[in-house]
């Protein structure tokens, strides 16, 4: 689905999903946290039998800060041949969530396989899932402090930040996660405009 159908949210410049080129990889639905469970239930009832994956992205500086991404797949629930499976429907549900203590409703009631995936999102991003049977850390040790996949979590852990890496002199070597700026941003705008078949704006 083209990006024009993705509702715009505040801070679009920080939201690459709104700028995506026309790639036909799934049907994309963006929902608000309040509507998440209702949307997922409707999709489950509508044939999306599998919750293939559940992950999160930290768009630091955007509001809401996180996107939790659900990848759904509609497979026939009974014994089926290759022809019957055909090309199943793929749906991607994106749900923005932010605040001091980000929290969403759990999907474990709909798909038990969400269990470990939600624990991983909680462990690595600090997003809580209300109603999850056992929301504990899964990859990191139980006494770990912080959520490593957050963009403001230092790459080598807080303890080792005292010895920073030697600076790399290349101008283009911007910190990971920083949005492009200056000439690069301008070039990028042109690239996007070209990809959408529009004439780039004259500065």
């Amino acid at each position, binding site marked *: 689905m083209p990006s024009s159908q993705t509702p715009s949210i505040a801070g679009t410049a920080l939201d690459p999903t709104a700028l995506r080129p026309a*790639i036909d990889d799934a049907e994309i639905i963006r929902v608000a946290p309040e509507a998440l469970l209702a949307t997922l239930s409707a999709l489950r009832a509508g044939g999306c*039998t599998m919750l293939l994956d559940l992950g999160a992205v930290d768009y630091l500086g955007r509001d809401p800060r996180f996107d939790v991404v659900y990848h759904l797949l509609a497979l026939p629930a009974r014994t089926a041949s290759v022809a019957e499976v055909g090309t199943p429907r793929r749906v991607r549900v994106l749900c923005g969530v932010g605040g001091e203590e980000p929290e969403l409703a759990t999907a474990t009631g709909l798909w038990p396989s969400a269990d470990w995936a939600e624990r991983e999102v909680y462990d690595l991003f600090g997003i809580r899932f209300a109603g999850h049977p056992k929301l504990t850390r899964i990859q990191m040790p139980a006494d770990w402090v912080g959520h490593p996949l957050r963009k403001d979590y230092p790459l080598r852990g807080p303890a080792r930040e005292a010895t920073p890496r030697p600076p790399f002199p290349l101008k283009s070597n911007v910190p990971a996660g920083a949005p492009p700026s200056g000439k690069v941003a301008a070039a990028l705008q042109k690239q996007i405009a070209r990809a959408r078949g529009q004439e780039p704006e004259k500065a």
Partner: protein
Amino acid sequence: MNSIDRGSAPPVTDLGSSMDVVARDGNTMTLSMGPQHPSTHGVLQVVVEVSGEVVESAEMEIGYLHTGIEKSAENLFWTQAQTVIERMDYLNPLGNAMCYVLAAEKLLGITDRIPERAKDIRILLCELSRVASHCVWLGTNGIDLGAISTFFYSFDIREDILDLIEDSGGARMHPNYLRIGGTNGDLPDGFLAKLDALIEKFPKRMRELRTLLQNNPILRDRMIDIGVIPPAQALEWNLTGPALRASGIAYDVRKAFPYGGYEKYTFDVPVRSEGDAYARFLVRLDEMDETMRIVAQVRKELDRPGPVMVDDPKIAQPPKETIALSMEALIHHFKIVSESFRVPPGDVYQAIESPRGELGYYLVSNGNNRPYRVRTRPPSLYNLQALKAMAPGNLIADIVVMIGSLDPVFGEVDR
């Protein structure tokens, strides 16, 4: 021999170093199996509650091998991230690379410009990796069940394949040979002759393995009706790959969402409906034959020479010999190596059929020379999770069979 008094309950004091009694409560006992247990195929801890020898519940602890690959990849260039990504599923590094490369190519918008020969080489190596990975599974699964000698037979095939992978990319396990835009150079001289020898030798080897294992009464007894997953439960627990196809659902990413040129090749998808460990065993064996069918078809395509890298100097490194002669080539080479290339902003989900199931990458780019987010959909993680549903009601010794039949790779589960 010491005589054991069978009349009273034997005191459970020493079950060996890797099977420790955690707690006892009335008729049930909680045991910790692993993390250093040979049958867990890595570092998996299963905390099982048993009543006698029957499992009441099984909880798993993972994360012992967590190395923060996703975090590392976010901090590396698009070209560099591939090296850490290949280390997730260490039995199928080329599959990981394939998925990542395809996803990045979609974001770059160069999917249609990848040369045919590059696509063929990629498919060839991915399919060979699938056989190599199944060989490891077959060998270790045999050991779990007491059939030690099959390990040597299956590793013989695997060694031949790793030799081919070494010839192509220079390394046995993590060659980093696939590149965004194609492959790193053409196949070397003598590669196709070795491949022909493997294609010729394979059916005989496979027959030997089947004779040893397939109708072996001990193996059949250990696997039939063990760890049964009905189709509805398989979907609920998010199984993919051979585990799902053994439960009767013929979902194969190569057929449902053909990628990277698979639509060109003819192959069948082995499916069984029993859903037990033996069905998963047979599906994988059949899959090895089907895979070699694809390999033989790709072999024919490889007689035709052609370019192996996309014709785009901003993405493809210039050939080494041009660097000394052309200033543009030197500049492009310097730019690609020192700061990689920029990928237009957007997000994409790309899936491939790995030996364990649907391996997916959800990549987000914000227009920079590093991926903004690399989310993996690890098939092993979800397949392994289903053990919670499979284990109750079975004997504790069968947990070993169930783990083996799910074929988890812990580099991928923990990342």
